[in-house]
């Protein structure tokens, strides 16, 4: 059996998946989920991102597993990874995954004592099988949504599990670094975060690979469950090299009075489909989504930021800022869906695209789907060029044109950069932006 992807084929069959699961000593439920995913991948259609053609994107050319060594001491990590976890003021709790191998893990005794689980997904399914099974592709995302989701389950090879028990509030951020050291290595990464009642946690993840054009595929799913009155702050910086085709789906589920706040720096250089959806299920639940992205070269990207609201008095805040240069093309769909019965719900969204090139394309589409009368909703969208009057103002103080553009772009992207809770990650995102906007 093989799965047809567009016209090309993926050469993974039942026995491959079976063996892969056995080698990892996985529980039966996960092996079955993988096999079901493989089967579904044959019949399910590809996702259909609005206004972006993905027919000729590479979803098939990759090495599923490229082994990498574990890391004994943290100082053995290369400098650019060390910088992320903080050289002097190190994040106390972090995981480094090298290709798909869990390479380094650090979790404080204090958090362990409080019952917090923070570990790689392979360990999690072995050691906390029942707990993981209860949520994994079960509550927030489903294996049968489309072909890429099904394949994600079948070929899962990395990820982390974060569990925060009831009433546990964690002040310091927990961090994952997903480091694709080898360009041809694929990543089928699954991040599962469960924040139980009245808990709070901040999680930040970094994805990075290196600057080659060698082709590979990333298929990433993050499921975030915020229980009643729980709060999850989720920060991310995606920074894959040009050859990586990325499908990334980060989805939240929020119970009564719970909160999820996303701050996503989407800096991939390759073609990317990103879906960030939050389901505000409980009354009084809250979602705040802030994303920034830069399109450059000839890359094509499609971003969905979406909040579905069932909860009464639920509140959704969506903000997407993007800078487009060269001949890059990006579509931004901001979707506010308010279901019948979600009385007094509120939804606000803003999409702004700054165009730096005549040849770039940026589409901002705010979409309101409202089935309840008693709600408030607003949206704003704009696609525009660098304001010549702003440039005149800055330059009239002696600032060069390049520096003035740099200031305006940094300022434009600041609403998300400033939200990232780890200094090292914030700095890294600033540096990435810097590198991308100054050719």
């Amino acid at each position, binding site marked *: 059996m093989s799965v047809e992807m567009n016209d090309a084929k993926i050469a993974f069959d039942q026995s491959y998946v079976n063996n892969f699961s056995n080698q990892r000593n996985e529980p039966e439920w996960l092996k079955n989920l993988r096999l079901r995913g493989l089967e579904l991948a044959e019949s399910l259609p590809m996702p259909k991102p609005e206004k972006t053609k993905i027919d000729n994107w590479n979803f098939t050319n990759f090495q599923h597993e490229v082994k990498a060594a574990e890391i004994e001491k943290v100082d053995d990590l290369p400098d650019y990874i060390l910088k992320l976890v903080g050289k002097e003021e190190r994040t106390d709790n972090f995981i480094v995954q090298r290709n798909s191998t869990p390479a380094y893990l650090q979790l404080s005794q204090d958090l362990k004592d409080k019952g917090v689980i923070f570990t790689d997904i392979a360990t999690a399914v072995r050691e906390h099988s029942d707990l993981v099974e209860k949520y994994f592709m079960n509550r927030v995302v489903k294996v049968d949504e489309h072909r890429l989701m099904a394949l994600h389950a079948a070929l899962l090879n990395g990820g982390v599990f974060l569990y925060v028990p009831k009433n546990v509030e964690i002040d310091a951020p927990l961090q994952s670094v997903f480091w694709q050291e080898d360009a041809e290595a694929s990543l089928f990464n699954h991040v599962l975060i469960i924040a139980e009642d009245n808990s709070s946690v901040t999680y930040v993840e970094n994805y990075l690979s290196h600057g080659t054009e060698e082709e590979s595929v990333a298929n990433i799913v993050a499921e975030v469950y915020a229980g009643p009155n729980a709060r999850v702050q989720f920060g991310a910086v995606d920074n894959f090299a040009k050859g990586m085709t990325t499908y990334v789906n980060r989805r939240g589920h929020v119970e009564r009075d719970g909160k999820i706040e996303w701050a996503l720096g989407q800096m991939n250089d390759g073609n990317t489909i990103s879906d960030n959806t939050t389901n505000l299920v409980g009354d009084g639940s809250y979602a705040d989504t802030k994303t920034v992205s830069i399109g450059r070269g000839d890359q094509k990207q499609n971003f969905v930021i979406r909040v579905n609201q069932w909860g009464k008095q639920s509140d959704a805040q969506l903000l997407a800022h993007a800078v487009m240069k060269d001949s890059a093309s990006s579509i931004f769909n901001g979707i506010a869906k308010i279901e019948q019965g979600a009385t007094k719900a509120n939804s606000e969204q803003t999409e702004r695209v700054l165009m730096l090139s005549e040849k770039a394309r940026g589409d901002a589409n705010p979409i309101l789907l409202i089935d309840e009368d008693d709600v408030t909703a607003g949206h704003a969208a704009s696609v525009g060029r660098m304001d010549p009057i702003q440039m*005149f*103002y*800055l*330059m*009239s*103080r*002696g600032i060069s044109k390049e520096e003035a553009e740099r*200031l305006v772009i940094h*300022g434009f992207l600041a609403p998300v950069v400033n939200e990232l809770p780890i200094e090292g990650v914030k700095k890294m995102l600033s540096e990435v932006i810097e590198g991308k906007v100054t050719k």
Partner: protein
Amino acid sequence: MTAPNLKIENLHVSIEGKEIIKGLSLEINGGEIHAVMGPNGTGKSTLASALMGHPKYVITEGSVTLDGENVLEMEVDERAKAGLFLAMQYPSEISGVTNADFLRSSINARREEGKEISLMKFIRKMDSKMELLDMDESFSQRYLNEGFSGGEKKRNEILQLLMLEPKIAILDEIDSGLDIDALKVVSKGVNDMRNPEFGGLIITHYQRLLNYITPDKVHVIMQGRIVKSGGPELAQRLEAEGYDWIKDELGIEDETVQAEQA
């Protein structure tokens, strides 16, 4: 350091093909404050913006030199680095860029690489200038002009003037929309700059600013050129009698730029 000299000769400026300034000449030396006054629509703000290199204005004739150097050949940032400053009537709002970061970038733009102003020195200077202008500390970390009231924007322009210490500053209607207290504060800031190495060009509609900043010379602009010059007493007479006597004296019926072309 020598006293700076800004020399404008026979300047003609157009916007979208329409001539606004029609042969204006003016010379400002260090230690002098000049006031250019005139009713609305006579070309005052066009003069200010054109001197700084505003992208909408085209200079069709004439010359502008600063210490003998051709200003009109310079990019906007080069004009600033040469020592020219424009306090704008409507300063832009730049989201996400703090006042402090912006000012440091501006100061460092004038300096060579490796000779940037130290953070401590910068903060001390900024604190003292903000105190002089009665500005709350929080202004340094607020985004550049974003959400500032009209008066706060004007103060912020003067703060930039004090921080950047240009050779020649043009103040474009820096008094408009200010209450009397704010006007005093802004004037205090400008007076603080007065020295032989600094020259100022104040563009204003009203005489009242000149009660606080005494000009050395006053020029009246009509129909895109200077039609009368004098000392501070000229401003006082304008305040008392308006502009009509000048129009009568010179036989001008409509002082605006538009009317003459129609």
